[in-house]
């Protein structure tokens, strides 16, 4: 009875204090999250049904903007460019995983190499863009390096002008920038693997690759999955390299760059919002597919895959058969 009537009393009690602390600590982050993430997103979702500019009157057009996203040839052509970045991100992850494995064992100047390779991630993306603009300029850094290796300038392509390779050049910059970060994540995960396992594996006669295949990969599969998902979604929304280096011109305009152009130069805010929503849907689908894929790949990741077990059983059967034949032969 006393508890019910006196709220102040309740607030001073342990339960009350707990609730109070939870509420006060959660209010600010939740308000920030709502105001700066969910509210703008909701607004953008609303905008995608309007024909509107930043200022001036709005006109409700229903799903017309979404139809336009699918009808315009520049929107989905731009998504094809993401394939370049996806291939790039796979190369990037393979490289990062390889170097992480090497560097997590004892290597001379290991910390130095880690630092050198992580460094690009610390540089601002815009600065990276400017660096590579000059890097790829005809007769500048990259060409000079290749020339000193014996290439003739006439035989070298124009890295940004030639439309058959300029997207690879841009992908190269993003690999350069992000592989160090992936590597550090991988090293962190590999560090947490119990080193006794290596020793035990060594005693069993496992070589380095087998250690990698059967100890390291299964132990860090969560980080691998995470990195792959982040890289693939990142490559769908590639923006900085094409925006800064080529400003999306010359066939390098990715989905994001096109969206930026439509939203800010053409001021078709509704259409750009619809593009953003479509991209979100694509990213969600891509993430879902990857989750399913990894579920399949790591299905029996703890020990080994089913095929190996089957093979071993076959081998064993063959061996037994062989032995039996031998016995029969010796018995005769």
């Amino acid at each position, binding site marked *: 009875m006393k508890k019910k009537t006196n709220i102040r009393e309740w607030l001073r009690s342990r339960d009350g204090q707990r609730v109070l602390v939870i509420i006060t600590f959660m209010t600010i982050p939740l308000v920030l999250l709502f105001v700066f993430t969910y509210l703008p997103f909701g607004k953008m979702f609303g905008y995608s049904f309007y024909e509107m500019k930043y200022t001036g009157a709005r006109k409700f057009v229903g799903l017309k903007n979404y139809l336009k996203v699918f009808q315009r040839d520049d929107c989905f052509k731009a998504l094809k460019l993401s394939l370049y970045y996806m291939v790039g991100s796979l190369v990037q992850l393979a490289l990062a995983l390889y170097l992480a494995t090497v560097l997590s064992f004892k290597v001379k100047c290991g910390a130095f190499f880690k630092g050198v390779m992580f460094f690009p991630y610390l540089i601002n993306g815009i600065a990276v863009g400017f660096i590579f603009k000059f890097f790829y300029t005809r007769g500048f850094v990259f060409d000079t390096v290749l020339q000193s290796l014996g290439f003739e300038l006439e035989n070298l392509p124009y890295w940004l002008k030639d*439309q058959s390779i300029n997207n690879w050049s841009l992908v190269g910059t993003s690999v350069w920038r992000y592989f160090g970060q992936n590597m550090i994540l991988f090293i962190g995960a590999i560090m947490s693997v119990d080193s006794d396992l290596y020793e035990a594996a060594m005693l069993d006669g496992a070589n380095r690759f087998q250690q990698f295949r059967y100890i390291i990969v299964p132990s860090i599969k969560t980080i691998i999955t995470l990195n792959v998902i982040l890289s693939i979604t990142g490559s769908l929304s590639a923006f900085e390299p094409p925006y800064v280096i080529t400003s999306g011109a010359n066939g390098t305009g990715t989905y994001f760059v096109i969206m930026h152009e439509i939203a800010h130069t053409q001021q078709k805010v509704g259409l750009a919002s619809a593009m953003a929503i479509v991209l979100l849907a694509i990213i969600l689908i891509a993430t879902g597919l990857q989750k399913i894929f990894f579920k399949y790949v790591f299905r029996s990741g703890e020990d080994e895959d089913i095929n190996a077990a089957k093979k071993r059983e076959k081998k064993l059967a063959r061996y037994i058969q062989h032995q039996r034949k031998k016995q029969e032969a010796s018995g005769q």
Partner: protein
Amino acid sequence: MKKKLLSYVLASAMVLSLAGCGGSGSGTGTGSSGSSGSTVSTAPVTESGTLSYTTLNLDEYSDFTASIKFVHHKTDREEDGTMASMIAEFNKEFPNITVTTEAVTDYAEDSLLRLNTGDWGDIMFIPAVDKSDLATYFMPLDSLDNLSKELNFVSSWSYDGQCYGIPYMANAQGVLYNKKVFADAGITQLPRTASEFIAALKLISEKTDAIPLYTNYAAGWTMGAWDAYVGVVSNGDDAYMNQKLVHTAEPFSDPGDGSGAYNVYKILYDACAQGLIEDDYTTTDWEGCKGMLNRGEIGTMVLGSWAYAQMQEAGDTPENVGYMPFPITVNGTQYVAAGGDYNYCINAKASDDNKIAALIFVKWMVERSNWCYNEGGYTVVKGGANPDMYAAFNGCEVMSDLDALAGEEDYLNQMNAESELSINAGGNAKVQEIVEAGATGSKSFDDIMADWNSRWQNAQSELGINVLY
């Protein structure tokens, strides 16, 4: 005890700061209400009648006393002392008018914010406000009829026949070139038509090592600069850009006489197709190109006159930097589009004395400071001297685009957005497309123009804008 003391200190500090706020707040409040009364009763009356630019006789006011503040965007001129020396000159004639200046770095945005506070000073450059709001913020300087008899380019900030701004300098649209490169290539007469221009570029490429035409493709906005030649320059019609273009069915068709937007962009396409541009256009460098033009490594660049001074400052041979009209001739005449830069304006909420002093200062700046001339600007005063860079413009017809018709002010913006061509509004991508198509041969010029025409027509039917031309 300690806590209590602290809380007293805090509380008193708060009270004091509140009082401070209240003080300044009420100050501006009375200030603005007092002066808004004066704007209703039109301009203050001076010895020679109501205050207006044309009737104000500078010589009558040599002992006028006031203190005014000038807010501007020319941070470079504030830092290098140009502004201070101009004001020193001003004070020789008007010793009792004190002028303080403030240069604002992010002027386009900051000035708008300050404008709404009301007490930003007495003179500023008009930021992007709606014309219908001009009277709320600024004092009318004179009627458009009176002012346009004495000054050029004053119509851009006029409303209801009243002028609210006077440009401090004007820019003209032409082509930058290197005189020495032209001489080395044996070009004695500046090209006046597109075919002459392409022939000149060919000569440059054959006889010199210079890049005939530097596109500045990578910077983007430098490509959008080509749009500036669509109006007056390409057809000699000052009503075209803001009035007729939106009603034109096929603005990008070839008129057949070497004029029109078609031939403006065709110069670029042809130069790209014939390899008369830089080797690798995707890695052009805006900062670097200034020195290259100055040193004679670049023959021509298509940019407004504002770029001229920068090109001169970028190297040791400023005398070689030249400026010529755009090589399109319409019925035997070359046209030059010119327009005002930022415009001086006077605070409507300033006191009467400050308004008079401000107008004195503005008139002095426009007519006696030589600022426009020194900046390499096209003259704002009718019949005023032009810098040498405009020597090649003699014999050309100088015009500025007329404003959009009443009720159609939004049409061009809407058409630009709907067609995504964004003419003179950041449509860089479409001009870059010309360079790509020209250099790689992926698309013919006529196909591009046909595509633009159809985009324009689709936008017209989408927006319901009637076709008149």
